[in-house]
């Protein structure tokens, strides 16, 4: 692309703005506060979130499998009398299926959304939130 040097000089001379005094100091204060709070919150939320979701998924899957075991043929040490009506059982299964599908789709979409060019034509890929 051919450069227009007079225009470049004109724009650089007239449009280069300076920040207010104390800009760097104020910003560094914010940075220090952000990095301090990050140290306390990051491991609780970001790092363990996936493990919590995975553990919940495995637990619920096992629970569903257990509910399908024909207990009448198995000798169990306690009196098992709870019976779910078939309609309620179906509703619970449907709810759990829809819940997990919706959650996974949401995760996929929110990941893909950052790569889609937004309405301004600006790509948001890799931008930290």
């Amino acid at each position: 692309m051919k450069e227009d040097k007079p225009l470049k000089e004109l724009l650089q001379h007239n449009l280069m703005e300076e920040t207010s005094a104390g800009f760097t100091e104020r910003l560094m204060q914010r940075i220090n506060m952000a990095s301090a709070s990050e140290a306390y919150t990051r491991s609780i939320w970001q790092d363990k979130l996936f493990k919590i979701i995975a553990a919940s998924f495995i637990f619920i899957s096992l629970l569903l499998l257990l509910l399908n075991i024909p207990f009448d043929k198995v000798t169990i040490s306690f009196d098992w009398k709870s019976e779910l009506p078939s309609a309620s059982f179906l509703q619970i299964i449907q709810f759990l299926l829809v819940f997990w599908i919706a959650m996974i789709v949401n995760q996929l979409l929110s990941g893909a959304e950052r790569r889609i060019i937004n309405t301004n034509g600006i790509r948001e890929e890799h931008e930290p939130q």
Partner: protein
Amino acid sequence: MNTATDIEIIQQILAGNTEMYSLLINTYKNKVFSLAYAIVSNREDAEEIAQDAFVKAFKGLPSFKERSSFSTWMYRIVVNTALNKKKLKKLVTVDKTDQAIQDKTFVFDSLPYNLKRDDQKKFIKMALNALYEQEKLCLTLFYLNELSVSEIQEITGLSESNIKVLLLRGRKHLYEQLKRLLKSEVKNLI
């Protein structure tokens, strides 16, 4: 600018020396602020955007892949932050659009008065503000932030040919605006 140095600084920041970030801030603060100002045309908003962008960049440093230079990555954050802010502001002040148009017209009408005061800076800004948003953005990134077409492509997501067309049209429109404004200045002086 100083890509190797920027990366060295980033490595030191990631190693725990957060104070080193002030070096990056001092290197880029005026260009970041000028870019934000070119998008939102308001000093207070531009300064807030510059601050937010630097904080976002700091938080995102661990995910910075060094595929592009720090400056390109930083400008992308600035552009996105500024456009989001502008979009939000438009939503909030939607009822004041007519008033804003009137204000803009008023500024143009009062141009000769400004020129009498030899305010070249305002004059250039007016011409630039009269351009289409994408033209203004491309011209600012190319001439003010001294980015290449491929870097602008990386920031905006626009195609290379589209950027070239926007730069050509933007230059043409900018000269037309300058000529138009100069004519009105001469008329007023006569």
